[in-house]
């Protein structure tokens, strides 16, 4: 009874935080001067500019997805299954761009290819061409590919761990690794690769910060501009609706292709040494190629960013002008991560245990909300909460936390569900037969056994809340902006050195907790 009540409460929180705002936004888009009207959508359909925006958005998302798949899948196989040198360090480095707000990677590339970038010190003509290129479709694709390739790489690595090594070993008796990978392994991890493609497509489709910085016209920027510059709520919601529609459509397509109700990750039994692919004479050249790619995609832009920021004055100014935002960002991210860890645990538990009848819908909803552009959720939150009676929510940081919960519950619930799937049901059953009621079983048995996963979920939540731009920029109450929002709004009048310093601080905020956790785990491992 208690179990059911708690899980229903968790679902209710998700519905209030996530589904209700999207529904409110849709209703609001049909309301013109208090009357039901499709005028907002009519103007959307007849406007040539909207079709250009749609074409730009689709082109950006499609090209990013194709490139991210082309790089991410081989990288995932190389780093996840082979004896490539430095594979762990490379996996961490390739993941860095995903951990920071995407526009920081755009700023980093600007410091390499921009008019005053490092390329200009080598060749002014080349830099001029590169800058023009950066501020177009392909520049946006370059930045978003660096940011979202880790999604493909990581999901490929995770799904490779779900393949039973015996299946590959059976193939190895008849063929070489290339044929086994192509004919057996990759078809088995196909749902993971498709999920990665869907996520990359939708994340690129909904990305606001990068196209805004690189001045590329896409739907999220249009929706944001209509809302902030013209305060045309109807046009903003109508521009947001196609984004929600595309998200729904792409997910429906993915489900139709994969024919499975949910994303289940079950790790296979550990394989023996034979299941590691020995690269032999290709080990060194492939290692060098991976290092070169890492330098090009990750290290070069970040080094340029750090180099640009290298002055005491820039950092002093950064802390003076954005110190309050920095503290707020960390506070909100920590609070959001804690809420998300709890909610994600309960939702993950419900999904894993199939404890409520509607678990597949809830599971799907969390992923849908994660893939939905942040600006859409932001507009939805405003539609729902911007009323005198609920101003205590709308006018405080609670509105940001609601947005975090709505968008990132899918991250923590997925991590938790995967970890809980690794715990035999008999653990909790034994506790039940020992006389423990559900809260005691969950708090003293299940949660402690899943503690590593819970820490991972908290960190995942922290990183995503910290790097959030789409929701925060739409809903932050006056004087309560976060660091990513402050940096974005400072770009118009801040010096490149100041912006670079702020970006470096942002990167450190994301990476330091991960580094500390990594060291702690390593230390604990050594101590044992």
């Amino acid at each position: 009874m208690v179990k059911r009540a708690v899980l229903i409460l968790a679902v209710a929180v998700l519905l209030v935080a996530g589904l209700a705002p999207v529904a409110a936004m849709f209703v609001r888009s049909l309301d013109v001067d208090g009357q039901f009207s499709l005028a907002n959508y009519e103007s959307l359909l007849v406007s040539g500019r909207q079709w250009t925006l749609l074409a730009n958005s689709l082109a950006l998302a499609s090209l990013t997805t194709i490139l991210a798949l082309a790089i991410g899948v081989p990288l995932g196989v190389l780093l996840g299954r082979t004896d490539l040198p430095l594979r762990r360090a490379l996996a961490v480095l390739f993941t860095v761009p995903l951990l920071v707000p995407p526009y920081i990677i755009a700023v980093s590339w600007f410091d390499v290819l921009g008019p005053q970038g490092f390329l200009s010190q080598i060749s002014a003509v080349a830099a001029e061409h590169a800058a023009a290129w950066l501020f177009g479709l392909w520049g946006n694709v370059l930045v978003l590919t660096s940011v979202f390739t880790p999604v493909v790489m990581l999901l490929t690595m995770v799904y490779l761990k779900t393949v039973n090594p015996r299946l590959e070993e059976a193939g190895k008796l008849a063929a070489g690794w290339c044929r086994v990978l192509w004919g057996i392994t990759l078809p088995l991890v196909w749902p993971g690769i498709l999920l990665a493609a869907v996520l990359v497509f939708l994340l690129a489709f909904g990305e606001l910060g990068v196209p805004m910085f690189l001045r590329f016209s896409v739907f999220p920027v249009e929706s944001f501009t209509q809302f902030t510059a013209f305060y045309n709520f109807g046009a903003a919601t109508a521009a947001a609706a196609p984004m929600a529609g595309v998200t729904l459509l792409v997910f429906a397509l993915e489900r139709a292709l994969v024919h499975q109700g949910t994303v289940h990750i079950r790790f296979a039994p550990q394989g023996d040494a034979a299941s590691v692919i020995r690269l032999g004479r290709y080990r060194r050249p492939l290692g060098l190629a991976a290092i070169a790619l890492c330098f090009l995609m990750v290290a070069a832009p970040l080094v340029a960013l750090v180099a640009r920021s290298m002055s005491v004055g820039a950092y002093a100014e950064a802390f003076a002008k954005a110190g309050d935002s920095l503290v707020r960002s960390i506070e909100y991210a920590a609070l959001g991560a804690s809420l998300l860890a709890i909610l994600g645990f309960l939702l993950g538990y419900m999904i894993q245990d199939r404890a409520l009848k509607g678990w597949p819908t809830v599971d799907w909803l969390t992923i849908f909300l994660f893939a939905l552009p942040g600006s859409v959720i932001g507009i939805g939150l405003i539609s729902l909460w911007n009323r005198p009676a609920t101003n205590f929510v709308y006018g405080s940081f609670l509105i940001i936390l609601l947005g975090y919960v709505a968008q990132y519950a899918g991250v923590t619930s997925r991590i938790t569900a995967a970890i809980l799937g690794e715990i035999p049901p008999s653990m909790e059953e034994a506790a039940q037969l020992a006389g423990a009621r559900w809260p005691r079983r969950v708090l003293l048995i299940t949660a402690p056994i899943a503690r590593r996963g819970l820490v991972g979920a908290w960190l995942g939540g922290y990183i995503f809340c910290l790097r959030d731009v789409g929701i925060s920029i739409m809903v932050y109450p006056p004087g309560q902006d976060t660091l990513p929002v402050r940096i974005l709004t400072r770009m118009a009048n801040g010096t490149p050195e100041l912006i670079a310093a702020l970006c470096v601080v942002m990167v450190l905020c994301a990476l330091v907790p991960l580094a500390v956790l990594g060291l702690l785990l390593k230390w604990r491992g050594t101590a044992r």
Partner: protein
Amino acid sequence: MNAVALDSVSKSLGGKPVVRDFTLAVPPGERLAILGPSGCGKTTVLRLLAGLLAPDGGSIEISGQLVAQDGRNLVEPEDRGVGMVFQDLALWPHLSVRGNLEFGLKAKGVRRSERQSRMARMLDLVHLTDYAAARPAELSGGQQQRAALARALVTQPKVILMDEPLSSQDRELRLELRTEITRLQELIGFTLIYVTHDLDEAFHIAARVVLMRNGAIEADGTADETRRHLTSTSPSWLP
């Protein structure tokens, strides 16, 4: 009054009948083995008794109390007074042996001094006194088995269910542990329902053996009677 009584119990899983019209009465203090091939429904019977599954039909009584009837559990597993040793043992990896034993006692609100004395006695009975502070991963297979047994017994349940608990052990250890289980049952006097597909194990541990096939009882009698039945019918699943 029977320790356990199942009356016309049925259960389907995934639309397939797993237990059919299962009727069984077990008097207090009896050692009963349920024997049968894989997939015959033995484990499902245990899970129905424990309350981890609800029967589709029929009724279940434990120590005279009606715990399940007409497709639903009337008493939750934690309130049935049943202990269980799982096939995978299900020792909680984050707790020491002492922690594993103490968990159930705390959940049942047993006072601290009583907890200490019960745990000390139980650890002594299973020869694990020196390993009280060890985590399950630090124990040998036999020690883990004893720890799981001690955990099931420490809350003093009237009925102990064992679901092929020795299946993952080597032959020598199995022989040693089944003697140990018999010794403990004689010493404490709990009712034991032991599920296995191993003939030797069933006949060694139990005074009464129930033979199951396709979700129903095929034979029920003393160990000797069931052995004779098996010899006369020679089912194909026998080695």
